[in-house]
């Protein structure tokens, strides 16, 4: 018997759960990790505030990203501003890094479309809720970059569950054939609502799903922000230089419920969750920075105070944001209002007059 083809999936970890840095990647600048840490910490504080707002009826269903801060902030921190992010709903850390404001994120989860009209990364996609359906948007965006000979990259973020959809495979396949500047980042947080990763695929890794598309797949410890930045950064630079797409799997863990409407205790054990807490990303990065003399107790205290102040200001601004006009539900549907909506718009305007008048 001959072997027709052979493959392997590399795995990267530099910073372990104890905060020990073993053989760092070439060119690692520890200083660069300080703003990354700050955004990770802010993401966690934002997350807690959002859940609290939901519990008190001031926000609607919210998907927490507790425990996934290294993956989301890490991947965004190696993108350039002009790259395009195609996210799903659990990438709060990436949004914050790229300049989406906390007020905008609150508005979105409060059910206000203006939360998707971000002032920050204007070309980034809004949150995609139908799972995996945004993977092909990334190939289209990347094809536009390729067509215009722009050195830009489309970064598509998805969950482990999303890789079970044909959409993901179709996009990976097309990206491979057309050699598109795309990076598919699969954040494997162990669960897709109540279905564990092992019931999502018979594969040993999600990264190897790249192989059927003829493109590289790599895996990294997604709680190790050094590894996240290394593998995603390499994939992005590979894409930017015209060498095509990559699938990156980041191993992390969803430390809390799927959303505020979920109760994870029904399908997973307390032991599993507490074991995962020992692996979480924030503490290990803080330990590293502290050991290197880049972060002190006073820095942490100042950061906590700063984060709280920023958050309270954002909450106040969010709560004070006046509602959208009723007419906005038709105003943005088409570039030009079609005849059949003219009467409906007038009806909405009249109802609005009634409201306030």
């Amino acid at each position: 018997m001959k072997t027709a083809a052979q493959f392997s999936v590399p795995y990267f970890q530099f910073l372990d759960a104890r905060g020990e840095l073993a053989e760092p990647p070439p060119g690692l600048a520890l200083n660069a990790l300080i703003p990354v840490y700050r955004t990770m910490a802010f993401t966690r504080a934002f997350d807690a505030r959002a859940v609290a707002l939901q519990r008190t009826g001031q926000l609607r269903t919210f998907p927490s990203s507790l425990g996934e801060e290294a993956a989301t902030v890490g991947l965004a921190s190696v993108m350039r501003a002009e790259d395009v992010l195609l996210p799903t709903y659990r990438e709060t850390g990436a949004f914050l890094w790229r300049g989406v404001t906390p007020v905008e994120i609150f508005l979105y989860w409060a059910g206000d479309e203006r939360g998707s009209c971000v002032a920050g990364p204007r070309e980034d996609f809004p949150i995609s809720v139908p799972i995996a359906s945004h993977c092909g948007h990334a190939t289209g965006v990347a094809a536009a970059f390729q067509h215009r000979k722009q050195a830009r990259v489309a970064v598509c973020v998805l969950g482990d569950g999303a890789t079970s959809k044909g959409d993901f495979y179709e996009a990976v396949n097309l990206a491979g054939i057309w050699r598109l500047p795309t990076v598919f980042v699969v954040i494997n947080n162990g669960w897709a609502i109540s279905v564990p990763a092992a019931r999502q695929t018979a594969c040993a890794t999600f990264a190897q799903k790249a192989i059927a598309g003829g493109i590289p797949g790599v895996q990294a410890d997604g709680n190790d922000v050094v590894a996240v930045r290394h593998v995603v950064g390499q994939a992005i630079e590979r894409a930017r230089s015209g060498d095509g797409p990559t699938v990156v799997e980041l191993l992390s863990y969803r430390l809390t419920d799927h959303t505020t409407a979920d109760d994870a205790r029904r399908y997973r054990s307390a032991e599993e969750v507490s074991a995962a807490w020992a692996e979480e990303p924030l503490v290990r990065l803080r330990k590293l920075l502290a050991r290197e003399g880049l972060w002190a107790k006073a820095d942490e205290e100042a950061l906590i105070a700063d984060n709280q102040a920023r958050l309270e200001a954002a909450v106040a601004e969010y709560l004070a944001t006046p509602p959208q006009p009723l007419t906005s539900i038709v105003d943005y549907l088409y570039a030009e209002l079609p005849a059949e909506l003219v009467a409906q718009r007038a009806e909405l305007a009249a109802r609005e007059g009634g409201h306030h008048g």
Partner: protein
Amino acid sequence: MAELTLLEAVNLALARALEDDPDVVLIGQDIGVNGGVFRATGGLLARFGEQRVRDTPLAETVIAASAVGMAVQGMKPVAEIQFAGFMYSCFDQLINHAGRLRTRTRGRLSCPMVLRTPVGGGIHAPEHHSESPEGWLSHIPGIKVVTPASPASAYGLLLAAIRDPDPVVFLEPTRLYRLLKEPVEDDGVALPLGRAFVRREGTDISLIGWGAALVEVGQAAQTLAEQGVSAEVIDVASLRPLDSETILASVKKTGRCLIVHEAPRLYGAGAEIAAQIASEALMSLVAPVGRLAGYDTVMPLARLEDDYLPSAARIVDAALGLMAYR
């Protein structure tokens, strides 16, 4: 002016759009060297190159999704789906993304894509090659649905679809591809979307249809004229936005109407038009609103297909039935 088939008119409009705008890109299965299964893109690869006329793998979902991605980046993708029966996996993209990107981002992003596909029966194609999905598509907020009924309107409407700032599904009646020729001028002039066309003027009854059904509607109008009944023929052309004004004006003038389409009647596009006529033109009506549609079944295979489609004879019968009201 050249006499062209509808297929040649589509090809001409695509070439014109590619020529005029470097952001126009065609994507689809077999559209390159092969020129598409019907040859709608014939010769375009040789003329515009691989970057502009891109063969895709056999994957309708990512064809539609990539078109969304390109369009959001401000390009003008024109995606071809080989047959309407294979476009259902694109519905997710049309409904969940293309149709709502502009509104859910409050105008930050938009999606000026075009999805072209042959529709309708009558060419004795295999199963799943003869579908009429216009009703489902027209129910989707945020997209436009256009179906031409002649070579000249195919040229003008396709140019309009490509230039439109919003997503357009362009349904090409397969049966008309090579059925008739008409002079088509390659003047780059687009026809308006959201406008119905009066194909024949009349005073006794309005026959309202779109796409290939207008062939039989036209024949029926001729037969009716020979029997002293003056039928006005309305080509709806654009199902969303819908030109209610032209339709209602015609019905108010004639007092009678028959809506003809190939798709099943139940919840079909004809039901919407009938409802609008009932609520906006009731006082002008001297007969009930008539509908002659496909049966509420799946499209039969070739041997029974002609019996399924509304024929000119059945249109004449239905129209004469409505004429009995005074």
